[in-house]
């Protein structure tokens, strides 16, 4: 457990519980669960759309470029809504919930939508060679580049602290 004296931003508190920050592997597993879920949902939705389209398409096949562009845009929007929605409402995606972690603002509290979008941007630029996640290993509060950009931390939560039913974004 990594712990330190009270932050000045929190104000006087009688006995704050020590906070444990989630490390690289825990966060990677949570991300993998989210990625799996997102891709399964996207694949099912794509399959349904293609089946319906096959019912109504008559004659020669049309150019599918426009369809691919629309699908890609919808996919990006879905990913954005999924992550930013969960981060800013419950602080937990499905992967976070399974791994019992939560994203909170560095000074405590929920994440505002704008900082959620900033964090998403930070995650996207961190993906090449996963360079943006390596700081988790060496920074004191196990923060990645996206955490530093959005001023967030990822902490472990006890099962009792988890919200019962996280609302869909």
């Amino acid at each position, binding site marked *: 457990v990594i712990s330190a004296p009270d932050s000045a931003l929190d104000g006087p508190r009688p006995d704050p519980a020590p906070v444990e920050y*989630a490390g690289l592997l825990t966060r990677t597993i949570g991300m993998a669960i989210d990625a799996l879920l997102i891709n399964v949902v996207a694949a099912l939705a794509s399959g349904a759309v293609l089946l319906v389209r096959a019912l109504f398409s008559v004659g020669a096949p049309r150019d599918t470029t426009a369809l691919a562009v629309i699908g890609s845009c919808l996919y990006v929007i879905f990913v954005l809504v999924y992550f930013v929605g969960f981060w800013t409402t419950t602080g937990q995606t499905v992967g976070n919930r399974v791994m019992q972690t939560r994203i909170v603002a560095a000074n*405590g509290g929920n994440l505002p939508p704008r900082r959620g979008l900033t964090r998403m941007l930070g995650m996207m630029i961190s993906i090449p060679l996963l360079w943006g996640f390596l700081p988790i290993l060496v920074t004191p509060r196990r923060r990645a580049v996206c955490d530093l950009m959005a001023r967030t931390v990822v902490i472990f939560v006890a099962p009792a602290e988890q919200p019962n039913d996280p609302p869909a974004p």
Partner: protein
Amino acid sequence: MLRELASAAVRPAARLGRDVDRRTRHVLSESSRRALLSSVDVTLATVDGVLSSEVLDDVAARVRASGVLERLDAALSAAADSPEAAKLIRTVMGSRAVDTAFELLLENDALWRVVDEVAQSPAVSRAISHQSVTFADEVADVARNRARGADDRLERLARRLTGQGRVRPADAPARQSPSP
């Protein structure tokens, strides 16, 4: 004409017969119903009287005082632990009768219908789903615990590689409230 006269003469008699029959059935059914209820009432009252009396307490106390239960328990334990009992069980289980009984049981369609009914019952479905959730929770618990341990090991390795060593007090993270 003759037929009409005959039927006019017989009709009141038939009506009277039906009426008598109905009344008799009613009286008999009412009597038998009352008799049944009375017998149930008497039985329950008797049982209630016996249970509320001190007779049962006396009987139980005497049985306890006589040590019959201890002797019975000791005798049963000795019989169950004896080599003869083991030999008897081996003989019975090794006999062809048991094999035949099991074969006949497995060939019985009624058994598989019962199994199907039980497997499709809501209670069993609920139990299986609860078991699945518990198993998933256990898997997630194991993954979480192992990941936490691996997090620490990875961090130590990274700090060793970067020459940072242990966490310096100045680098120590601020304690904060996890919830808003």
